[in-house]
């Protein structure tokens, strides 16, 4: 019978059938970060377990590190404690740690694909909901809580209930100004923030095939904002080309064997999904969120709708108000959604000799040390700095506000991150989610603006 990619990966990783739709799944990779990693290892050790397969666990500090230029571990003292704990526990158990300032350091969902840790056909878990990002490599990656993380470390397995399957096909040519971020925001706006709850989503269709790997990572990143723990894209020649030569990708004779296996990963023709959606690319325009949930989104040409009074009051917006022209105080270009080299290039390309508006604070936070170095090698940082953006150190920064960095209360921020929740970027901060190009355009204009008018 024709099988979906999800079914193939799931079935291949079942160690034991636990009944009632549950399976004990083998985990090929586990990622941990500073916010919960050190504690998770310590709890596992305290309970008398070891870390089952430390060579399959990769650790990195990202959530609670400062992004201030020239930062070190002491810049945010609470984060320093967490980092010390991560160093101590990974050192004790032999887990690889990618520490501040060295290649390989970065936001966990940026560095893991970048290092080739994430490979097609694998299962991967991490104590972070945006682990779904990694599904762009053609694997089954999902976020878990602290207790499940302990289980993953102690056994390299996890009991999971099989989700249903959903396919979202994007068909047609990509309109000007529309990015992967706009595609997924549009999908969430249309299908709803709970549409994916209980599902594993496969993104497919000609417009997804046409996306580069970094764009696919952006697409999969917001799966959880649609409710789905898992989002994935079939591996193809672009995936293989992206992976070849990366530090933890298969080498030599195993490379060919791996590719042979990976070619069998995509869904079979005729595979049936429990739910199938079709989105036409021509229906998508550059998106901007207006509320406090990622589903509260509209084209930048649109208006603030009526309905959610609490969200509008928090956001300081009036129903019927035109979105474009709304004054902006902050811009954040970064996060596991949109901080890769292609994102920074897209943002820099909007500048065109202009300067960040006087009243706007604009941050560019590269997603990893490697992204930072590559961006600097091609002079992107100079273009940002000359235009009045701040060029900062890699980390989660303003996406998560767990590192001493916050958007001030009442300030309006256009952000390339993934959550516009109340207080997400700081108590009282007002977040508008958008693509890197839209965010850069807003920084220059000092207001929400249609990027298509700026290039």
């Amino acid at each position, binding site marked *: 019978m024709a099988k979906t990619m999800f079914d193939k990966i799931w079935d291949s990783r079942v*160690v*034991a059938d636990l009944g*009632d*739709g*549950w399976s*004990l799944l*083998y985990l*090929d990779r586990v990622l941990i970060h500073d*916010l919960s990693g050190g*504690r998770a290892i310590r709890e596992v050790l305290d*309970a008398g*377990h070891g870390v089952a397969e430390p*060579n*399959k666990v990769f650790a990195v500090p990202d*959530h*609670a590190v400062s992004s201030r230029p020239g930062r070190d571990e002491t810049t945010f003292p609470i*984060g320093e*404690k*967490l980092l010390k704990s991560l160093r101590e526990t990974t050192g004790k158990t032999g887990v690889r740690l990618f520490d501040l300032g060295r290649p390989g350091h970065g936001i966990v969902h940026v560095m893991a694909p970048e290092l*080739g*840790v994430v490979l097609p*056909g694998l299962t991967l878990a991490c104590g972070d*909901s945006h682990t779904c990002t990694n599904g762009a490599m053609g694997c089954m990656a999902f*976020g*878990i*809580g*602290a*207790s*499940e993380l*302990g*289980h993953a470390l*102690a*056994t*390299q*397995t996890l*009991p999971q*209930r099989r*989700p249903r399957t959903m396919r979202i096909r994007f068909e047609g040519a990509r309109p000007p100004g529309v990015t992967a971020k706009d595609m997924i925001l549009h999908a969430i706006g249309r299908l709803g*923030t*709970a549409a994916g*709850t*209980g599902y594993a989503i496969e993104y497919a269709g000609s417009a997804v095939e046409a996306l580069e790997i970094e764009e696919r990572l952006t697409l999969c990143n917001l799966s959880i*904002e649609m*409710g789905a*723990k898992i989002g994935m894209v079939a591996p193809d020649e672009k995936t293989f080309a992206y992976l070849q030569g990366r530090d*933890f990708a*298969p*080498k030599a004779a*195993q490379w060919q*064997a*791996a590719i042979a*296996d990976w070619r069998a990963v995509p869904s079979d023709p005729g595979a049936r999904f429990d739910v199938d959606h079709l989105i036409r690319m021509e229906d998508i325009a550059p998106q901007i969120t207006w509320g406090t949930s990622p*589903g509260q989104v509209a084209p930048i040409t649109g208006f603030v709708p009526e309905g959610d009074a*609490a969200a509008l009051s928090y956001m300081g917006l009036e129903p019927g108000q035109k979105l474009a022209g709304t004054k902006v105080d902050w811009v954040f270009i970064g996060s596991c959604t949109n901080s890769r080299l292609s994102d920074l290039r897209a943002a820099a390309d909007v500048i065109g000799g202009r300067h960040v508006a006087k009243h706007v604070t604009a941050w560019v936070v590269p997603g990893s040390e490697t992204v930072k170095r590559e961006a600097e090698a091609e002079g992107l940082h100079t273009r940002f700095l000359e235009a009045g953006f701040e060029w900062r150190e890699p980390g989660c920064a303003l996406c998560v*506000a*767990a590192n001493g960095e916050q958007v001030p209360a009442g300030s309006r921020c256009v952000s390339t991150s993934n*959550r516009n*929740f*109340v207080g*997400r970027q700081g108590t009282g901060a007002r977040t508008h989610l958008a693509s890197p190009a839209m965010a850069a355009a807003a920084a220059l204009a000092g207001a929400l603006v249609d990027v298509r008018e700026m290039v």
Partner: protein
Amino acid sequence: MESFSSITATAVPFLRQNVDTDVIIPIQRLVGTGRTGLGPYAFERLRYLADGSDNPEFPLNQPGYKGSQLLLADENFGCGSSREGAVWALMGMGVRCVIAPSFGDIFFANCFQNGLLPVRLPIAVIRQIAEETEASPGNARTTVDLERRVVITPTGTEIPFEVDTRKREAMLHGLDDIALTKRHAEAIAAWRVGDRAARPWAWDSVA
């Protein structure tokens, strides 16, 4: 994990959609803290006024509701971040059961790891429980019986709910998942040997 068999409590209506785990517990409270002590910070952005006093508008601050073990919620409760601190914070303020039409998947799983029972019921039923409770504040009690898999509304209507057999057992007896999985140690070892032979590239690249 704390075991759970049955509770009888005043159901607190908090019927708001998409209550995310950032709202349940801000991340700042989880930086460098443990599993305990989060109760005072649960829902802090809604629960307290700027001066730190209780916000009288917040249901769990209202007389008759404060300290209740049972929360009624709306669609997509616990969406967003995977932070298990959301469950620890709810339990820290005394909540042992949340009834909602749907939950964020990761939050749902985290609940079962700690002994907080998430119950899925249609919104119409939840509204009915809310109305029955509001009609008789101070007296209305709702029972959630995991043993029998029923919710009993304040007026005595029994409403069955579904729960995974596996999760129900674990919760009734406070079982630890790691201990259960270790019973499969031989199967895991055998599986590893087989997979290593079948897909050496998945192993050797990180050896």
